[in-house]
């Protein structure tokens, strides 16, 4: 974006973008070399470092009011590769860092290396995969050309798939294989679209493409194919079917990372594609189709969540529904007068929804995992008495749910306010009604779980395994992040609007 004339905000060069991607990779390499008990330690050392890097980028972008850029190797696009961090990138990187830190602290108890230093396969794999997911997510957020983003997307999939089958059971292996096959097909669709775009315009760099792109048949086919592929990876209705078994079968820490972050990666690519590369191509009908799929996802996901007998499956179907909310952003950001997608309060609401869902769902999966390990099962009907046994955990679950329902002061409420405001302002009442109905359905299954958890047990519960306090604290901290996210409006942030041609501040007007 610094190469495009006429934009008010210039980009400054910053090597922190590369550091954000390289540090986890260095950690992976060191883990392979050193092995044993060093794997966990390297990961834990990298957690605060990565958080510091993400915070630096966030502060520079939001308080310096400019986007960050890094030209790899000094070769400028279109021949070389650029990395760019703007408002949405910085916000998502911050969210990813926070979630991974919380998950890392949580997973110390589950994926501990043995006392004599010998490694177990699961703990070795988990820490390496966690770092790989982090690196891939950062690359997705700062990648500035479509092919780098393809590589990042595939890296993310390869890191996420083994996380599903960490415990080695046949069902989880099946779920992992299904996920991989469907995700790779989606990625190949994306590749075909990228090929067509290159053939039409001669470049894949996002900034240069955004100048050259026109709404001709090649571009339209490319856009459709890429979107379909990315929808398969994001598990939007009706392509959501790999998600519930995969997310429910993974261990608690892995489920949290999968639901909170991995699906947001391909969603972020969709935002980049439609808001940055081709805002004028999607058209009214296209945005309404995405909105309809989102509404269907909300309906199906919430109703199916209500019917689940197992807690982890309920939370996984809740993810399916919440992904639908993210896609409601597209029709709401569409301006009928200029027939393009605008970077307005609907985009801010969508990004906020993604961040608040990431923290809330992370907290909910971590809590569900704790209840599973404490009780030995996660049947909802058998949850009685868990409220007395694990109070912090149930509170974390509840606060996550409060953010999903959209009660103040959570981030979900702020996102809902912005999205509803955009819906009402553009006269699209039906999306407003969909969002409100979704909130009511969410409160339905939250109430079901809470009512079971808070009733006293008929016979005294036996703890299958002791649950350390710091695990509960990690889940609760993540839930509190989600709850307090709405207070970010108190700060004078222009969160999603940095380096956009039109700037608007995030607030409630």
């Amino acid at each position: 974006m610094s190469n495009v004339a006429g934009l008010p905000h210039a980009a400054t060069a910053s090597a922190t973008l590369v550091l954000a991607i390289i540090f986890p990779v260095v950690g992976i390499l060191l883990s392979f070399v050193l092995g044993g008990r060093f794997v966990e330690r390297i990961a834990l050392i990298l957690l605060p470092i990565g958080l510091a890097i993400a915070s630096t980028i966030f502060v520079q972008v939001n308080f310096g009011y400019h986007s960050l850029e890094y030209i790899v190797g000094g070769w400028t696009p279109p021949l070389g590769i650029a990395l760019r961090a703007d408002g949405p990138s910085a916000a998502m990187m911050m969210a990813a860092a926070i979630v991974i830190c919380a998950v890392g602290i949580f997973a110390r108890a589950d994926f501990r290396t043995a006392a004599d230093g010998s490694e177990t396969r699961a703990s070795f794999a988990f820490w390496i995969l966690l770092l790989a997911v982090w690196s891939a997510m950062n690359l997705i957020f700062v990648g500035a050309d479509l092919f780098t983003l393809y590589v990042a997307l595939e890296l993310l999939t390869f890191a996420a798939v083994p996380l599903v089958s960490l415990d080695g059971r046949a069902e989880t292996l099946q779920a992992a294989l299904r996920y991989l096959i469907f995700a790779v097909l989606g990625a190949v669709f994306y590749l075909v679209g990228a090929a067509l775009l290159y053939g039409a315009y001669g470049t894949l760099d996002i900034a240069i493409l955004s100048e050259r792109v026109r709404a001709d048949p090649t571009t339209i086919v490319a856009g459709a194919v890429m979107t379909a592929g990315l929808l398969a990876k994001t598990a939007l209705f009706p392509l959501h079917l790999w998600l519930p078994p995969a997310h429910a079968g993974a261990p608690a820490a892995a489920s949290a990372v999968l639901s909170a972050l991995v699906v947001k990666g391909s969603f972020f690519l969709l935002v980049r594609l439609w808001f940055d590369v081709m805002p004028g191509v999607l058209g009214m009908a296209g945005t309404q189709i995405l909105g309809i799929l989102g509404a269907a996802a909300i309906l199906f996901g919430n109703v199916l969540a209500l019917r689940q007998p197992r807690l982890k499956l309920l939370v996984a179907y809740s993810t399916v529904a919440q992904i639908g909310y993210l896609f409601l952003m597209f029709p709401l950001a569409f301006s009928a007068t200029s027939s393009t997608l605008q970077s307005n309060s609907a985009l801010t609401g969508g990004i906020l929804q993604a961040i608040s869902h990431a923290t809330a769902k992370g907290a909910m999966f971590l809590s569900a995992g704790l209840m599973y390990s404490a009780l030995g099962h996660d049947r909802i009907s058998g949850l009685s008495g868990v409220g007395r046994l694990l109070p912090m955990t149930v509170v974390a679950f509840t606060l996550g749910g409060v953010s999903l329902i959209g009660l103040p002061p959570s981030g979900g409420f702020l996102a809902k306010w912005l999205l509803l405001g955009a819906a009402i302002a553009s006269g699209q009442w039906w999306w407003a009604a969909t969002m409100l109905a979704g909130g009511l359905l969410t409160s339905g299954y939250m109430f079901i779980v809470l009512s079971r958890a808070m009733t006293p047990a008929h016979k005294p519960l036996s703890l299958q395994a002791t649950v350390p306090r710091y695990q509960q604290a990690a889940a609760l901290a993540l839930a509190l992040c989600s709850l307090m996210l709405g207070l970010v409006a108190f700060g004078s942030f222009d969160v999603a609007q940095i380096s956009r041609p039109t700037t608007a501040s995030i607030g409630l007007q």
Partner: protein
Amino acid sequence: MMDARILLGAALALPLGLLFACLSSWVRKRMSSWLAIAPFPAFACALFAVHDVPLSFGTRQLRLTFVQDTPGAILLGVAALLWITSGSYASACLRGQPNRRRFAVCWLMALTGCIGVFLAADMVSFYFMLALLTLGAGGLIIHDDTPEAWRAGAVYVGLALLAESLLLPAFIMLAMNASDGLLIRDAIAVLPTSPQRDLIIALLVAGFGIKAALVPLHFWMPLAYTAAPIPAAAVLSGAVVKASVLGLIRFLPLGTAMPDWGTALVAAGLLGAFYGVAIGITQKNPKTVLAYSSVSQMGFIVAVIGTGVSAGDDGVALAVAFYAGHHVMVKGALFLAVGVITAGGARPMWVLLPAAIVGLGLGGLPLTRGALAKLAVKGPFGDGFAGTLAMLSAAGTTLLMLYFLRRLAESAKRDESAPAALVRPWLLMALLSMAVPWMVYEALPIGTWQDALSPYALWELSWPMLLGGVFTLALWRWHDRLPRVPVGDIAAGISSTTRVTVACGRMLEQADRVLRLWPVAGASLLIVTILLGLAMLAGR
């Protein structure tokens, strides 16, 4: 006098601070004994804080403002008194109970929300406090952990969330229209001229109507008040439900005459007033009778607001606040009376006589503050058809109160005396509910003592009571012929719709299973691609 801002801050800070202190388990263990302390700053604020001095914090983009105006001050004051006495009652009856920590946390949540709603001056803090209030109240309702309590809690929270879903778009539209901050007052000033006026008012009336138990969405009230423990029921029926009354006063543009909306409100309100009496006399449990009496009284209050809306008279706000404030104290006192009598009614007359005076005051017993309240609201109705209906509703209230007294007497546990720790709050509440309205009446520009004691006024008040007495005699004769209506009348009919919804859910699950077939998933991928492509081609 202390600065108003300090008082406002203290009123909110103490309950909120105690709520946060409950994070420590040491505090949580002892919190249930300290419940009565929390509302004291709020009471001081209601008495001493200068009106219309705002306490605000936040940035230019998001500013939370709290301010005290006269209707708010009345309601805050009486509600604080109710919270204090019910708090000490709760501390006494919670001693040794297993769930008292959860009760204390939910109590503090509801208290904070209640005070916050009365003081909120901008839409975001109003919505936030309302949500906090709902969650706290829900937690209080389910305290006993019986299936009925959970069902009542589910209905309450479900309908409250529905109401809040209706209010949220209305608030957003108001904020968009005002275009300059989130203050309620500013938004309401531009409301009458806004193009979306009717839609906004419809949403506001629907949302606040559900929370005010307007028929037909009133059925959460009998379920909730029957299931909740006594002190919780006292504050729920007394203070919590007045949040919706205050919402209506603040959010409806009472300065502009809107006759169609006003008539609708009057009609709905009076319907609720009579409906509550009609169902109330079929109930056995005195708590349920009181709940239906609340339905009836809230309907009446909404009708009074309706007269204000149709006449464009914003002096109605004060009269409504006075009437509602009186109702706060009366209902609270009556619920505490039920608690005292069921705990031990060895000498029932000690309870029944004050209860009679308090309760009949609701109907407008002359020389009581109920009379003042009735006089205050009689004016707006005028002398026409609506006025007659209003007077008849007073008759109905008298009928219901006498029926309640009878049910109360029958439920007394004759062999024990109630412990003093329970009796003291009840007596305090009864005395306050007799004395306070006189003092408030003096302070407000509603009317004077002499008006209240004039022969004309006495006649106006007496004939509905006499009519009520006649109805009561009829009821005593033919009581057994009345049908048995389940608690929460309409709610029983809702259960048939749950079967339909469960069937729909099963259908969706079946559809999901079809979508799971690999060929269908592959085809979906192709279809989504083609649809998107066609849509973009068409829109080119």
